[in-house]
């Protein structure tokens, strides 16, 4: 074997070249945030020691401590959330400084969770007629208040859109359209209650769930009740900033709810998710605050804490449902991740 002779100019030496840089634009805001995290008891001198003098690392560790290891693991297993605190928000596709000493805490969803609820609905309907539907509708309406879902509603809208496209297209192309037939994929109890009066339905559902709260499905009903309680008050997000941001679309769905594996809802989601990452989406949660104002800091922390609590209850319920029915415990969440086309 012949080795090439050493050549002094071949590779520039990296000795003396810094391998990393830490820069802090608006560093006063970063330090104010660190002080606020200390005041809210999320960080202490040990956190500061571990951070090795880096304010960014201190803030990250303090916030991770606030979320907690168990909750972090549960959420990571089920959904892809990104939490960031920033001094800029998106405007027309570019970052724009918030100014006036303000920061934004954002949670963005990069990959939705997955709930196959069909077997659970079936089991509850076998226990009492209407119980499965009551559980489904109550969960759906509670979650609508706090996060974007992808469920039968979105799939029905997608199907309607497909029919509209087909009607507008040339006659020779119309045979090429495939319609997902979402309504046929719904369990009978959901189909029957799809167009019922909202208020009457809600009252019936509440009564049924109350009757069965100590029965066979008490754990699921208990978790549902906690989700409902947490979602009762709207998360006071800084909507005005999001509306100014001119995002192309609402937040990416945090949860895909289907009835069976690869049913019409999953098929619609697969089609729609191809283009979901092509444009800018609102974050799943946004709260603006001034780190120098303790009231605003507490309010922002409360909003984030409640969102995380709701998600913790939700994904504990999801895991319990999947385990309870040996649904697909081997489900690989990455299969449901939103994919860029």
């Amino acid at each position: 074997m012949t080795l090439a002779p050493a050549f002094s100019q071949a590779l520039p030496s990296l000795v003396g070249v810094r391998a990393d840089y830490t820069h802090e634009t608006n560093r006063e805001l970063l330090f104010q945030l660190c002080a606020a995290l200390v005041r809210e008891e999320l960080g202490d001198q040990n956190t500061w020691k571990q951070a090795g003098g880096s304010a960014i690392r201190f803030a990250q560790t303090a916030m991770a401590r606030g979320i907690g290891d168990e909750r972090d693991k549960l959420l990571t297993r089920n959904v892809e959330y990104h939490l960031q605190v920033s001094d800029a928000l998106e405007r027309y596709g570019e970052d724009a400084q918030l100014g006036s000493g303000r920061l934004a805490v954002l949670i963005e969803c990069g990959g939705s969770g997955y709930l196959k609820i069909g077997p659970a609905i079936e089991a509850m309907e076998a226990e009492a007629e209407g119980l499965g539907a009551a559980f489904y509708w109550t969960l759906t309406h509670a979650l609508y208040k706090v996060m974007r879902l992808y469920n039968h509603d979105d799939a029905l809208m997608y199907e309607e859109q497909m029919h509209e496209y087909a009607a507008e297209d040339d006659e020779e192309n119309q045979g090429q359209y495939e319609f997902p037939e979402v309504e046929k994929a719904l369990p009978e109890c959901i189909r029957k209650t799809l167009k019922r009066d909202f208020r009457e339905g809600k009252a019936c559902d509440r009564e049924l769930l109350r009757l069965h709260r100590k029965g066979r499905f008490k754990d699921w009903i208990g978790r549902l009740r906690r989700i409902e309680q947490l979602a009762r008050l709207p998360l006071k997000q800084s909507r005005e900033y999001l509306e100014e941001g001119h995002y192309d679309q609402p937040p990416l769905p945090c949860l895909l709810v289907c009835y069976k594996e690869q049913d019409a809802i999953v098929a619609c989601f697969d089609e729609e998710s191809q283009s979901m990452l092509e444009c800018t989406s609102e974050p799943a949660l946004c709260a603006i605050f001034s780190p120098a104002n303790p009231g605003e800091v507490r309010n922002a922390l409360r909003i984030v804490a409640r969102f995380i609590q709701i998600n913790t209850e939700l994904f504990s319920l999801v895991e319990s449902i999947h385990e309870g029915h040996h649904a697909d415990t081997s489900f690989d969440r990455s299969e449901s991740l939103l994919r860029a086309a």
Partner: protein
Amino acid sequence: MTREELAALFMAKAGEAPPAANLILARHLQCKESCDLSSAIAEATQRYAGTDRTLLQAPPELLSPLA
């Protein structure tokens, strides 16, 4: 160090002038030309690294011929 002392330390740091290296980096990050240049380099790297269609030519003065 108590919580109050740590919070006071952070508030004192918040009031300090940023280090010179920080200012240079911050100035570059706020400079449109610098940002455009770094985006162009990042885009070019992605475009060329992701395909085998076009290879970046190594500058001849850097590598000696192996033959």
